[in-house]
Every structure is written in C-alpha cells, then in structure tokens.
C-alpha cells in the first residue's frame, strides 16, 4: 500500500471498473437494485438464537437461517444449543421456542424447528448425492472475488425487532478447512469460503453469507483458528454443504426418530457404532468400552466390554472426547477402523462404513 503515484493510478482504474461491475451485479439483484435492499431482504430470513452459555467466555447466542416454510432453521452445532430452551427471534421481533431436530456432527451443522407461520426463508439448492470427489465444491457462481454480505447476530448487538448486523467483503479464497478450537480439530475437512471481513466474532456463527444478488451462498462458521498459523479464520460453509447437512439431518429424522443422545449422554457417533463407553466423569476419561450393543457394527467387528480404545483410523485417542472428535471428523460412509488394548495387547477391529447420523445401528 505504498503511496506511489504509479500504483495509485492503476489502482484507481481498477477501482473504477470494480464500481462498474458492482453496478452491473446489483442490477440483477433478486430483491432490488441496491445493497440496502439486498441486505434488508436477506436479514428477514436470518434469526437470532439464544440458548445455553453466558459463562467462561462462552456466548449464549448465535445466528440461524430460515430454510423452509415449515420453520426449519440451519445453524452451527455449538454449546449454545445445549439447552432445553432455545429461543429464536425473527427480524420482525416475533419470538418462538426452537426445537433441535438433529445435527450433522461432521459439518457441525444443526437443524432447528420453530412453529411460526408465514415465515420468509431461503430455498436451499437441491442436494443430490454428490459425485465422488465433488464434495465441498463451491456453489455455482461463487468464486474467489465474489462480493458478499455477511448477516449475523454478532456480539448479540441486535435484539428484538432490531435487524442483524451486515458486513461487506469478498470471498478471498476457497480452500479446505484446517482449523481447530483449542485442542479440538474441526471435523469438517471440505472446502470453505475464506472471507476478507471479520466474521469470527461472538454470535456470528450460523449467519448468512449472501451475494450481491441476494442469493444465499453459505453459512458463517464458528470461531476457529487455522491449524497452521493460529490466526482466527473468517470462513463460511458453502451452500451446497449446508444443503447436504440439512437433508442429512432431515432425511434421517423423517425415517427414524430424531437423533437424540443416549440417556447416559453418549455422543451420537459413538452410539451409532453400537459402542457404549464408560461414563464421562473426568476431564480426560479414558475411552474404556462399557458395553457393546447386540447386532451393532461394533458387535460384528468383535469389540468387547472393557476394551480400551487407543486409535481411530490411525489417530491416537486418549480420551472419550478424542474418540468423539475423531469419529465426528469422518463423513458418513467413511470406513471406521479402531485399535483397542485388550489383555495387554493391541487388537485392530474394522467396523465397516460409518453409519448415517440419525440411524440407530
């Protein structure tokens, strides 16, 4: 950014062309011709969510996106949703209790439902099963340089009928997510949109990323640091992935009961495989197997009570939480191999493909 006149002139020209492009893009907007109208239209479909938290730096609020006329909301799976009473406040101030329909742990996406009427919503793109190797590809029309608005309940600034906050930016990169929060790696490994505006703020997670034509192109991710550099990432999950996650949860929910945790509080993925681990009593409870469900893939693979899990797909797991993390990082259908210590020696077991979330083993 040296202020050299030569650069300045070139840049000025670029700026001018940019302005022209902006005008051209906005001309085709869905709701209107101005950014103001685009934002207003988008914000109507974005909700403020309130749940658990408020202690130890964990915020009790985040953002969600209305995606069906029946009141389905997609948002980020987080501790905010660990509450019996999730409150959802619409752009017009209407307030509803929200029910957790289910979650896609790999995409860290949750689906909520409210009993509202005449709800504005974004239609998600059809999500045919993605061809092999195509998972995580960006939605049509989004590329590096696409101008976007991020609409979110950042810092919980907006309350009641106040509109969520709007930030402007561009999609700066489309790259696979390699990020962590504290010691936990993010399970999602597919492509995300890296943004040049600060969206890694409290409450932003679950917000809408819309382009200048007012189309929903992604969902803002949670506060994560890049694994390699430790910088806070401003990123969004592409809309196609959002749609897949949504239908994952819904598809499962429509065939079976919603995937609720087991009574002893076991995480979804572990339970899906038919493994019951010892109760989680310590910060790093060793992942001893308490019991194995009959007929489950774990039973078929020969896992037994009192086995100690030490690795999942080659990744060492020192605690119950690590087991869950490792399993959550796998896509539905990915092969699952575990190593256990049994009677002093290491035994490997092949559990077959990871079952789809929501299906009981």
């Amino acid at each position, binding site marked *: 950014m040296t202020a050299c006149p030569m*650069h300045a002139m070139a840049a000025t020209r*670029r700026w*001018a062309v940019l*302005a022209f492009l902006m005008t051209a893009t906005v001309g085709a907007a869905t709701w209107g011709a101005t950014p103001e109208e685009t934002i207003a239209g988008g914000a109507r479909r974005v909700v403020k969510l309130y749940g658990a938290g408020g202690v130890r730096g964990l915020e009790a609020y985040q953002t969600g996106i209305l995606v069906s006329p029946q009141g389905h909301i997609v948002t980020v799976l987080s501790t905010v949703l660990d509450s019996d009473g999730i409150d959802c406040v619409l752009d017009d101030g209407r307030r509803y209790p929200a029910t957790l329909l289910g979650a896609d742990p790999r995409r860290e996406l949750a689906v909520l439902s409210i009993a509202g009427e005449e709800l504005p919503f974004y239609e998600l793109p059809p999500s045919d099963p993605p061809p092999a190797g195509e998972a995580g590809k960006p939605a049509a029309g989004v590329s590096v340089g696409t101008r976007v608005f991020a609409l979110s309940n950042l*810092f919980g600034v907006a309350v009641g009928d106040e509109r969520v906050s*709007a930030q402007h930016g561009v999609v700066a990169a489309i790259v696979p997510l390699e990020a962590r929060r504290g010691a936990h790696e993010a399970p999602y490994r597919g492509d995300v949109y890296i943004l*040049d505006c*600060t969206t890694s*703020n409290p409450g932003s997670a679950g917000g809408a990323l819309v382009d200048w034509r007012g189309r929903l192109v992604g969902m803002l991710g949670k506060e994560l640091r890049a694994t390699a550099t430790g910088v806070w990432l401003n990123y969004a999950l592409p809309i196609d992935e959002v749609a897949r996650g949504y239908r994952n949860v819904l598809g499962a929910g429509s065939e079976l009961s919603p995937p609720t945790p087991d009574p002893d509080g076991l995480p979804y993925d572990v339970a899906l495989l038919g493994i019951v681990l010892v109760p989680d009593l310590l910060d790093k409870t060793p992942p001893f197997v308490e019991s194995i469900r009959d007929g489950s893939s774990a039973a078929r693979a020969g896992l037994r009570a009192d086995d100690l899990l030490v690795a999942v797909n080659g990744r060492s797991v020192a605690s119950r939480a690590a087991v869950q993390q490792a399993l959550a990082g796998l896509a539905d259908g990915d092969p699952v191999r575990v190593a256990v210590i049994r009677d002093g020696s290491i035994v490997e077991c092949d559990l077959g493909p990871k079952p789809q979330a929501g299906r009981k083993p």
Partner: protein
Amino acid sequence: MTEIVRIAAWGVVWAITLLPTNDIPAAEIPPAVRAAEQARIEAIARGARAAVAIFAGEAGGGSGVLVSADGYALTNFHVVQPAGVAMKCGLSDGKLYDAVLVGLDPTGDVALVKLVGRDDFPFAELADSDLVEVGDFCFAAGNPFLLATDLRPSISAGIVSGTRRYQFPAGTILEYADCLQVDAAINPGNSGGGLFDAEGRVIGVNGRASFEKRGRVNVGVGYAISSNQLRQFLGCLKGGRLVDHATLGATVATADDGRVVVSDILESSDAYRRGLRYDDEVVALAGRPVRTVNALKNILGTLPAGWRVPLAYRRSGRRREVLVRLAGLHTSGELAKIVSGGAEAEGPEKPPGGPGDDGEGKRPGRPGDPAPHGGGKQPEVVLPPPLAGLYEPRNGFTNFHFNVVERDRVARSVAARHPFPAGDAPWVVSGRLEKGQPFRIELSDQRATIDLPTGTSSIDATGELDATPAPPGSGGLLAALVLWRRLLREGPGALGRTTYWGTVPHWDSDPHSGAPGGAGDVTAAPGTPGGARLVDVLDTAAASVEGRFLVADDGFVLGIDLWPTPDADPCEVRFSPGEGLPTAMEVRHGDEVFGRFRIERIDVEPPAASGTDPDADTPADGGTT
C-alpha cells in the same frame, strides 16, 4: 492528489481480488463510472479536510470533526477528558491549531471544542442520520493509533452494518443510544472522528467498537453517535454547558403480550402530571414509535435534559398524546464529579426531577452556592496566548465564556427584531379574547395589571417578582409579561441571572391542540421530534421565579415558560409573530388553555406621573453583557 492515493489504497483492497489484470486502459472506463469515482474522491477529500487530529500530550489523543467555518469541532468526551481545557489540533493542511474546550456531554460521550486562528475552517455538514440505511457506503476519517504524525487523517471505508443500535453505558455515562454500527475499521484513536456518508457529510461521530479476544483492534464492529443526536445537543454544547441527558421519570417493562408498559413512575415527574400512570402502554415518544424497551431507551438517550417532547400512550384502548418535559439523569454535582474524574466526596445532592432541576447546570453560580464541584480545587488553567480570554470556569458550565457569547448573540437578535423604545414608559397591550370580549394589559416598571372580563389582577413589578401566580389560573402570566418587557426593552442584563440554555424543539402548530401558532409551516430541522424546529432559549432567574424565553432565528420571542415555583407546571405564553409585534398570544397552564388573546395594539405611553425610576431592573448578580 494525496486523497487519490488514499482512495487507491482501499480501492486496491476491494478490487485486487476481482480483477486479474492491472492493465485496463483508461479509455475503456465508461464516463458514468468515472463520474461516480470522481464524486467519491471528492466526498472523501471533503471528509478528510474536516477531520481533526486531537493531541492531548502524554494522555494520548484522538480525532474530531469540524462542523462550522468558525472552528467548532465535535469529538468524544473520553478524548478531551485527559486533555483538559486547551489542546492542539492538526488538520489535513498539515498545520497545528490551538483549540479550547467549549461544552461537554459526558453521558453521550460528546464534547465540543473550538479551533482558533481562522474564520474559514473547512467543515462538514451534519446529515440527517435518520435517513441512513443498513448497507449504505460510509467512511471514517480520523487518527487511529495516533498515526497522523503529518496531521493527515487515515481513511477507512465500509458499510453501515446496523442502525438504531443501543450500547449500554458505563455506569451512567458513555451511553451510545440510537447509534450507527459500521464495518469500516474503527480503531483506538478513531474516537471522536467523523463518520461520513457517500457525499462527505457527517452522519456520526465514531466513538466505540466491540472488541473481543483479539485485543483492542478493529473486528469490523464500530459504533458512531448519530448526527441527529449531535444536532440536538449542539445548541447546549455551544452555550458552554455541562449538558445532561433526559429521563422520563418513569421506567418501562415488556408485558407478557409484548406491549411496553409503565412499570414505575415518579409522582414528581412531568409525565405523571400530564397523566401517565402505572401500566399505561407507551406508544411513541418524540415522534417515534416505541415497540420495545430498547426503542424507548434509544429515543430517550438522544434527548437533552429539559427538552419537551410529545408522548403518546394508551390506556384501556384509548390513545392520548401529551407534551412532557424531560428531567435530567444526573444532578449537576454528579456531572461535575464525572468530569473532574469522580475523585471528590460530595455533599448531599438534591435528586433530579421537576422543571426546576431538569436542566442540570443551566444556572450560573449564585453568591450563596457552595464552591464549584471540583472547580475550587482545580489547578489554575494556563492557556496558550491564542486562547487568551476564551475560557471562564463557572459552576455547572464547561466554559462559561461561550455562554456569554451565545447569550449576547441571541440578545442582539432580539433587540434587532423588536422595535420597542428603551424608555421607561408603560406598555398597554389591548385586543380581544377568542369570544370577542376585550382585554387590556398594562406593563410598567412599577406594576403589571390585566383587565379581563372575569376581573382585574395586578402584581408588583419592582425588584424580585412575586411568586404568587396572577391572574388566577394562568400560572403567572403577569410575571411572564414583566420579564418579556424587560427583555425586549433592555436585553438580558435587565433580567437578573440570565444565561443561554441551548436549543429546544418548537412547534409552530401546537402539537397537542392543533391550534395554529400563526407562523405557518417552517421546514423542520432534520431528525427533530415530530417535525419541530430548533429555537434558542434564554434562561433567567429572579428570586424563586424562573423563566425561559424561546427565541426564533430572526430574534422574535416565540414564547415564555415561567415557573413561579419549581416543581410545578409553568405558565406557558406563546406569541404569534407579526410585523415587528406579536399579533396573538396563547396562554396555557398545565393541561388547560388559560386564554387566547388577539393583540390589536401595543401602545407605549409616556410616564403618567413624575415617577422616579426605582432602579428596579438592576441585575441582582453578574448580568454582564
């Protein structure tokens, strides 16, 4: 050229990812795009010229924005607080100017300073922030991280992220109500600087940002005090006052059905006297709808203490509209303590409430008053030579010098507008009431008398005014007219302790009766409540009687509010302007209209007898002019 470079700098940030090449020939750019680009360059240049870099020595510094050619600049209270009375200010011309503190609004985190040395300072116009929409382009011009060592401001651009935001105060001060939220980078040092729209007009003053774990640097969430709030306080600030924010005297809560209802109310509040009661639903305040508790806080937080604004409320399905006077959030002692850093122990303070107290700091110190809070112990202020004579400490004021300046300005315009001889001859005002009955009012230096169909009343006009309201039911019409005559004849020096109060909203048509005031529709000031315009107010005190004159831009005295005793409803007199003299007068007290007077003539008669002037009009105290 420097501005172009600066624009280019952030143009690159936005544009570089979009375009694969630098090599777009200039000829390919459509003229409309060039014109739009040029307009933006000029807007940013205008904003940059109005930007002020404020240096408070070792205490740090910040930013400001010039809003008049004679050097008035707005900034944050928290920027000037460590600087004290005098500071150095840099402009984009690379020059350093001396500036003096003029007025403070600690609750709203606003300060007004005046730069000296020129009468042609570049400045930016205050826009109507109610018209700002989420998504609008905006930019900040300021001094982030005190980078402006060459005094040229840094520009950061973005969009308006939210409007009408509410940011909780720290204690009772630094409350950001109805503020603008932006994603333009607002960093430490941007405080006090202007937030500009696409035309380079001021839509706000940046002052706060949400910071989180990443430390005190921008995360795309800054807040600016709206230009409409600034406009509402500007008059009070120009008067050198220590200005307070308003309270309704009632608290509200959200009912189960979502209505905003009164949950508690002070019986001493004007809202109570106007009929507001527990459980009433508040529907609108100052011309804006109230649908949430936050909305009410947003509206109240932008209003100066002492303003009178329309309030709409609903009870049993019936909507009522009244005008309410708003009391102050603080006592003048509390405000003084905040400004002096809150270090001193205070004696007992009278709680705020009632009209006698609602405009904190509006009265100059009285001989019997205790020493100024903090003022008595402050070190002697040494001003640099260019600021000599521009600072006068006074209890309840930030800088009394500027109060004298404003008071004299208004006094001159009043004298020029009202062609009354200065002699001591009595005035006889005569005409007819609404139903045609005649009235006659005689005002002399000794007595004031009114003849009405219902009888005759009279008061002693010498010395301090009688606190007994006369005629009965008027709330003190005769005392008000005595003060009116003194003001028109001899100026504010004849009134006793007279100060400039600031500006208040005035409706040319009475908003609660619809009765025409006679002046016709005047263009309302942007953002003022309910289509009112802002008019100057002179505040005067004589014994227990307190009066406020409303003065139009052209010097016409639009009205008088007179309190014979504090904590009671005043007598309200409103004049309809004519050629030189008022043509009509409406008198109200409380919720009642006392009378509407059609003025047919005002005769100035020679003295009846060899009356010796009892020298009654000598100011009791410090009526310097």
